[in-house]
């Protein structure tokens, strides 16, 4: 077995993930390298979910019976855990959504309906980047179509990084919001937050950071980031599906208008008018994803038990190993940074003329699960003139042995289509 400095004790960790024992296609052991799409769920999280439904299930808030109080305490307890995990100044700044996409749309809609000074309208500009996930592109296209605001973006350099050379032209006095990804899900690039935030603050624009590929993999400190909003999603960080998070600065959440209307988000309702509860409830209409939030809390406990610094170190070691090994595969070209520096553990590549669909399919026949396609970041494919990529992405349970299996698998693919 390959030993790299900084690796976690994956033998022990893998025991927590029942799915990793799955055997596919008559005897192929699952090699799960699709973690940027979704992570697997440890039994510690499943245990908490089961216990919730078997012991405490009730609708939250305003109940006076025991189950309702327990469910509320668990749900609000999960909020405390998330707040601590991202070092939020206040638990009331943590809004539960259904996924990162809803979190991003929530901000776009708040700003669309906001009063001055936040209001996005035809005289203002929105800034994103060419490496955004579709979930951080389409909401802004919709907002721009509906308000007349101009949508601008940072382009990419040939080596898969943000081109900030024209930052002062892209972010201007007209910019109301700058929204960008902390770690790209297709390129793996870890973006330079500070430079962007500094310029945004200079012109008084708000900053939204899409941390969907960061929160699962490294310590996240919203205060250090100096952003106004940070979005991420539960299913990529050992949590269940159906839960996302939006963190936002308290005074913004106070000032900005609500998005979805309904039960739980109100203070008082009459047929003629309503007033709204303070944040976070103002932004959580209807019965929230209760068990999912609790499951995310359990996932955070699990990640903390291993340590985000340790997870980061583990993935960095794997990424360095993988980048090297992959570059030895003939005809393989990494799309994105081709060193382990300032990058996450998602590595996209092309393999000669072999279409990623074929790469993925033949790898699958060997039990190796990777993602192929444009990874919901089609502008990146357009930018690099490729139809799609194959992407391998690692997590805390990934091993060097799995990277070796991938490399062997790619050799097989080459022979197969050679």
């Amino acid at each position, binding site marked *: 077995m390959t030993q790299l400095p900084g690796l976690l004790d994956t033998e022990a960790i893998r025991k927590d993930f029942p799915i990793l024992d799955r055997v596919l296609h008559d005897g192929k052991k699952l090699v799960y390298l699709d973690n940027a799409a979704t992570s697997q769920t440890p039994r510690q999280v499943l245990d908490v979910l089961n216990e919730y439904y078997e012991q405490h299930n009730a609708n939250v808030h305003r109940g006076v019976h025991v189950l309702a109080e327990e469910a509320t305490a668990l749900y609000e307890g999960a909020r405390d855990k998330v707040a601590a995990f991202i070092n939020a100044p206040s638990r009331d700044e943590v809004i539960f959504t259904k996924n990162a996409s809803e979190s991003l749309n929530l901000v776009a809609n708040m700003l669309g309906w906001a009063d001055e000074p936040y209001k996005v309208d035809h005289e203002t500009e929105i800034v994103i980047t060419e490496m955004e996930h579709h979930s951080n592109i389409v909401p802004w296209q919709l907002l721009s179509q509906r308000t007349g605001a101009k949508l601008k973006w940072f382009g990419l350099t040939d080596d898969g990084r943000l081109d900030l050379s024209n930052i002062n032209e892209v972010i201007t006095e007209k910019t109301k919001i700058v929204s960008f990804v902390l770690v790209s899900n297709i390129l793996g690039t870890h973006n330079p937050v500070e430079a962007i935030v500094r310029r945004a603050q200079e012109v008084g624009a708000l900053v939204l950071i899409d941390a969907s590929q960061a929160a699962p993999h490294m310590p996240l400190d919203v205060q250090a980031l100096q952003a106004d909003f940070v979005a991420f999603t539960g299913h990529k960080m050992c949590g269940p599906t159906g839960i996302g998070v939006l963190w936002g600065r308290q005074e913004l959440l106070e000032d900005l208008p609500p998005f979805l209307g309904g039960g739980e988000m109100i203070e*008082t309702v009459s047929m003629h008018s309503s007033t709204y509860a303070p944040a976070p409830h103002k932004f959580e209409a209807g019965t929230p994803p209760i068990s999912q939030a609790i499951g995310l809390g359990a996932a955070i406990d699990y990640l903390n038990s291993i340590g985000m610094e340790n997870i980061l170190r583990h993935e960095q070691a794997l990424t360095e190993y993988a980048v090297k090994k992959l570059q030895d595969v003939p005809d393989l070209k990494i799309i994105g940074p081709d060193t382990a520096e300032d990058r996450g553990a998602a590595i996209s590549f092309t393999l000669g003329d072999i279409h990623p669909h074929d790469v993925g399919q033949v790898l699958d026949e060997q039990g190796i699960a990777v993602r192929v396609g444009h990874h919901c970041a089609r502008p990146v494919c357009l930018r690099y003139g490729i139809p799609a990529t194959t992407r391998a992405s690692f997590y805390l349970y990934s091993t060097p042995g799995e990277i070796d299996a991938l490399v062997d698998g790619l050799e097989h693919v080459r022979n197969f289509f050679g």
Partner: protein
Amino acid sequence: MYQEVILDHYKHPHGRGLRDGDAEVHHVNPTCGDEITLRVKYAGETIEDVSYEGQGCSISQASASVLNDLLVGKELTDARKIQETFLELMQSKGQIEPDDSMEEILEDAIAFAGVSKYPARVKCALLSWMAWKDATAQALSTSEAPPRAEEAKTA
């Protein structure tokens, strides 16, 4: 949580009814619809009267009655101390075991210790106290600049 003292105050509220005052506030607990209208009357720094009308559960009603008992006739400084101690008790989630000094300050209000274990009911218990705080701020701002709570404490 339904201590005899609480039920007594609920069934026989002290000082209920609206009387003359320097300021009036109306507070609502949106989750359950509890309401209170409360007036305060000051003679300088002395609380001459706290009068109120309202509807709501036994906890919110009894709490208003206890408030009237405890605060009427007190100096503002002492009243603030009582209010803060009550708030501390109610936010304790049942973790505080009231000691003698707390009992001395809170008297009958100590009976609400059990309520602090029920998050849904804490707001009921605090409704009149928050209304009093608010009304006091209004009454004093219209007369003279009030001493701030912090200053009052060290005075």
